[in-house]
């Protein structure tokens, strides 16, 4: 695919869902748009499969002058994103069509998809931010889709965090953009260099890291993830956990000054935060009682591992190429696996006429992948470890990183065990339409095969190294399984609420509200006092005015001649005194 076709494909990838969303606003066409919605991701998927990186399209009229195009990394992101949206759409179309909000769902779906694809393809800051915002805010409509209390709460938390995140990102982008060559039409590629030399470097990095961290599940900014994944419809949860969480990661990749020297401190901070997320996610996750919550914490945990890689990149720029590959592979692997797991949580609920064993094999594949036993998982783990240990000069504390990552994998194993265990309890509760199967099957197949497509995007995986790393990958799994069995026998989960620390924070808005109410009570009281005083003063004034008015009228009328005479007399005296 080349030349003009490539450019058209670049435009079509975000254009098709957007066009469908626009067409949706004509009520007559809505019936026809609904069935098309899942297929909206197909152009993007085709682009990811057959497109060549490097082509760019300039859209000078759009925003401040937008540019879209693809690089090798973003093509991988585009691939799994489009695939997940496609699969999730196919999965969801059946059972959503009988929903009474399905029309609304459809438009939010298309808009979120547009945003997600747009941010991957955007080459300039404005379009990137625009797409990011479009995705963030449109996703709210998907999260609160069923209108239940839980969904609304999840939506609220999500929205607050999204607004915060957007603001932080905007701060970072504006501060950074000013120092690029063209502050008003900044390009993403110019950002890292500009940030590295900016006087407000730390502020910018903090803003961007935290801002995208809202999406990528940084500790203490992660509340929305478990809530949303649990409350949203399953296809949405799959898209959120598979594709949109990677948008945060992509944000880090394209904006943070990776590969620039002198950011060791930030590297350390990011690594620390990543480790906290990796272990904290696992610890909290195993105590959850619903499969989707377990998966959500698993996502947080996995993103923590990626954070470690990002931190390493910040600390040791020379590892850049290796880490870039590792992170990309990790993203692909985790996205597909997590999407498959989420879709699986619904598939398993449906009564089936097929042999159950196939279902459980299907459900197990992504779980195995995540713990690092399937080819993809293995490749991911080994590539990451290899990258982390490849540098010539390493900080002291890094020596323990492989071990820590291994421990984290133990946690992952425990999480997956817990997940499957919980799934077992939910199996076979209701009927599934066939479409649900198709989507799940597609994505599960992709978890297995996706990693073999890497050469398509110019990434040559080190399969030998992966095989050599197999023994190393086994002990965490074994440890995790042992833990799981022990726990199953003797431990009961702690009652950790789905959004963990958020519960501690919940009184906060209440307190603020209380304070506001107190103000509200005192406000009118003060106003009343003021009004009273005003009335009093006005009354006084009116009475005085009346009296003075009457007196003056009286005085002037009666004694104007007198006054006149007085003036005359004064003047006469004055005149005579001169004489």
């Amino acid at each position, binding site marked *: 695919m080349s030349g003009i076709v490539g450019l058209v494909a670049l435009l079509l990838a975000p254009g098709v869902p957007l066009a469908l969303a626009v067409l949706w606003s004509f009520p007559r066409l809505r019936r026809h748009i609904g069935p098309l919605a899942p297929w909206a991701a197909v152009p993007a998927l085709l682009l990811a499969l057959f497109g060549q990186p490097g082509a760019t399209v300039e859209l000078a009229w759009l925003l401040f002058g937008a540019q879209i195009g693809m690089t090798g990394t973003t093509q991988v992101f585009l691939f799994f994103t489009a695939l997940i949206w496609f699969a999730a759409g196919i999965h969801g179309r059946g059972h959503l069509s009988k929903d009474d909000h399905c029309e609304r769902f459809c438009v939010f779906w298309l808009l979120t998809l547009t945003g997600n694809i747009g941010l991957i393809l955007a080459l300039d800051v404005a379009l990137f931010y625009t797409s990011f915002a479009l995705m963030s805010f449109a996703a709210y409509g998907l999260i609160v889709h069923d209108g239940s209390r839980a969904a609304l709460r999840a939506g609220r938390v999500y929205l607050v965090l999204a607004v915060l995140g957007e603001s932080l990102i905007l701060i970072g982008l504006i501060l950074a953009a000013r120092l690029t060559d063209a502050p008003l039409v900044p390009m993403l590629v110019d950002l890292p260099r500009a940030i590295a030399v900016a006087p407000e470097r730390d502020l910018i990095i903090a803003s961007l890291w935290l801002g995208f961290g809202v999406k990528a599940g940084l500790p203490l900014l992660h509340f929305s993830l478990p809530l949303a994944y649990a409350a949203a419809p399953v296809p949405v949860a799959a898209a959120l956990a598979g594709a949109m969480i990677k948008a945060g990661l992509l944000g880090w990749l394209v904006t943070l000054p990776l590969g620039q020297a002198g950011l060791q401190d930030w590297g350390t901070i990011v690594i620390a935060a990543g480790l906290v997320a990796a272990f904290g996610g696992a610890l909290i996750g195993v105590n959850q009682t619903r499969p989707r919550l377990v998966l959500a914490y698993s996502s947080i945990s996995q993103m923590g591992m990626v954070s470690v890689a990002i931190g390493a990149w910040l600390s040791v720029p020379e590892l850049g190429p290796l880490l870039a590959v590792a992170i990309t592979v990790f993203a692909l692997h985790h996205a597909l696996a997590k999407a498959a797991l989420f879709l699986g949580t619904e598939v398993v609920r449906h009564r089936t006429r097929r042999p159950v064993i196939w279902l459980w094999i299907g459900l197990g594949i992504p779980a195995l992948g995540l713990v690092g036993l399937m080819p993809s998982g293995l490749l991911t783990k080994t590539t990451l470890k290899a990258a982390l240990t490849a540098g010539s000069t390493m900080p002291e504390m890094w020596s323990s990183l492989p071990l820590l990552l291994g421990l984290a994998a133990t946690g992952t194993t425990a999480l997956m065990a817990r997940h499957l265990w919980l799934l077992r309890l939910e199996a076979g509760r209701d009927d599934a339409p066939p479409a649900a199967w198709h989507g799940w099957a597609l994505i599960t197949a992709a978890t297995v095969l996706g990693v073999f497509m890497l050469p398509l995007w110019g990434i040559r995986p080190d399969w030998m190294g992966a095989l050599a790393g197999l023994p190393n990958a086994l002990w965490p799994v074994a440890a995790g399984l042992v833990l799981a069995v022990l726990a199953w026998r003797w431990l009961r989960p702690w009652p950790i609420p789905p959004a963990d620390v958020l519960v501690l924070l919940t009184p906060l808005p209440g307190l603020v509200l209380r304070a506001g109410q107190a103000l509200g009570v005192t406000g009118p009281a003060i106003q009343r006092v003021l009004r009273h005083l005003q009335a009093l003063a006005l009354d006084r004034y009116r009475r005085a005015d009346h009296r003075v008015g009457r007196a003056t009228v*009286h005085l002037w009328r*009666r004694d104007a001649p007198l006054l006149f005479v007085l003036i005359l007399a004064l003047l006469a005296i004055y005149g005579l005194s001169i004489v």
Partner: protein
Amino acid sequence: MSGALSGYLVFAWSGVLLFGLGLFGFVAHRHIVRRLLAFNIMGSGAFLVLVGLAQDGRGVDPVPHAMVITGIVVAVASTALALVVFRRWYRASGRTDLPEDT
């Protein structure tokens, strides 16, 4: 002062005196007719000043006379008008003074 009073200015000064008397009457009285009378006395005073001041030995000056005659005409006309208005006022309200003056 005495020097001023001794000569031709005696008329002028008596004019001023008359004017002052009239003014007093104009202010002191409430009855409109009295006030009109007072006004006429004031007028006479003013005319006397006019005529009196003209007798400074510059010879016969016809201008003050012309002025006084004009003034008298004006005063008469004013008084007449005032009396007409007063009569109507008296008929309409039964009062001889103005309402706010009491």
